[in-house]
């Protein structure tokens, strides 16, 4: 008798994935493999397809053609994956109630909620705001609450869509610190950004996309030191890609 390995969502594999809306092709034949390890950072100009790629990998939308597999399986519900949207939706409840909701949605037993909620709030630096209506929080606080809500299900993979866009340096640092801590705990982080500084600070691997295609995919050090393609070189040099 063989022991069956516990089901894992990793690796996440995209095989020639296309995604379009009516005539518009948004993801134009991407093949990718995401394995456990340091954060994978998706970079690329606005409109290159980062958000759409994250939604495909989260399983929120289905490819028009090609397929996405999680640990070799298709159509795996997002029980062990979490996503923080660029503009997270705050449930019309208190900060603490948002966390409790996420814990319940993750199927975590009620008797554990109080302790888990306390830890998550602490980790997100929101303990003092627990009873505030979530929708009254600042942008940075909302991002941290969304992050805590995502972590509530103890995910294997955490997707973040430009989590620090439009945040000031202090709020950005708070988010990046949580991301580093989460990654150090062995959670696979996959995040998009169009901030090259952030990509340098956090990335283990870089996936550079442009116009719905993967232009380059490489370890971060290698990508920034020796971009192989012209587009990547220009993007790294800070030129405007259109």
């Amino acid at each position: 008798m063989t022991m069956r390995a516990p089901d894992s969502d990793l690796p996440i594999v995209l095989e020639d994935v296309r995604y379009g809306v009516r005539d518009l092709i948004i993801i134009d034949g991407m093949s990718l493999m995401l394995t456990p390890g340091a954060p994978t950072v998706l970079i690329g100009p606005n409109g290159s397809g980062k958000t759409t790629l994250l939604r495909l990998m989260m399983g929120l939308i289905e490819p028009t053609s090609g397929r996405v597999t999680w640990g070799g399986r298709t159509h795996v519900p997002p029980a062990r994956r979490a996503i923080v949207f660029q503009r997270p939706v705050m449930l019309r409840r208190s900060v603490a109630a948002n966390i409790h909701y996420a814990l319940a949605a993750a199927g975590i037993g009620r008797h554990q909620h109080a302790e888990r909620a306390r830890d998550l709030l602490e980790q997100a630096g929101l303990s003092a705001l627990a009873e505030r209506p979530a929708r009254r929080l600042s942008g940075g606080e909302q991002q941290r609450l969304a992050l805590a809500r995502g972590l509530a299900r103890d995910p294997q993979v955490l997707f973040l869509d430009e989590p620090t866009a439009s945040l000031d340096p202090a709020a950005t640092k708070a988010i990046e610190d949580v991301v580093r801590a989460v990654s150090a705990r062995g959670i696979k982080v996959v995040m998009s950004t169009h901030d090259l500084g952030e990509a340098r600070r956090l990335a283990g691997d870089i996936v550079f996309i442009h116009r719905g295609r993967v232009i380059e995919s490489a370890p971060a050090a290698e990508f920034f030191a020796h971009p192989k393609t012209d587009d990547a070189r220009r993007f790294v040099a800070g030129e405007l890609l259109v």
Partner: protein
Amino acid sequence: MQEKLMHADTSALDLVLSADPALMEIVRLSLLVSLGAVVAAAVIGFPLGAVIALTRYPGREASIVVLNALMGLPPVVVGLAVYLLLSRSGPLGTWGLLFTPAAMVIAQTILVTPIIAALARQTIEDLWTEYREELAAMNVGPIGRVATLLWDARFSLLTALLAGFGRAAAEVGAVIIVGGNIDGFTRTMTTAIALETSKGDLPLAIGLGMVLIAIVIIVNALAWGVRRAGERLAG
């Protein structure tokens, strides 16, 4: 004339302040009928609104337009329709409900259901547009989604109930046709005002008018309070 009106005013106030038994009975029946109608309309209207908001089917747009239009149903027409249904020779004539409070509850339920269903539909659909992806990402199933939407929309849904109650309490056309304005049995504030005014008994009509306006103000104050509480608690 001036003097007669002044006199009517003071005796109307006396009736209200002394909690005149005949007046109180009319107020009690009015409230019971309208409350009954709102409860029945909520039982039908909330699920109906939720289903229209959350499902896709052919003719959906048209059904939304119809539902919104039904919010403005003329009470006398509803009264007439229910009258025809419940009259001796009507399809439901054997139930013997015509000219009873039950008939009045039925007629007002028909008036109020579209209001509650249409407001619930709008509220739930707007919230769903906002929550959809986030709930999908949290792996929330269909029942959990509906529960979440209803809970997070609770303040707006409560406002819809109050709007329905306001409409029921203030209408006269439907209840006068199917209730018949029978003294001590189916006489409500609005039907009594209509009758007493035409008879020239102004004190009772004015007294009831004052009570009715007070109720409308209270209902609106409640709606306002609910809105404020919602903003404070839910943001």
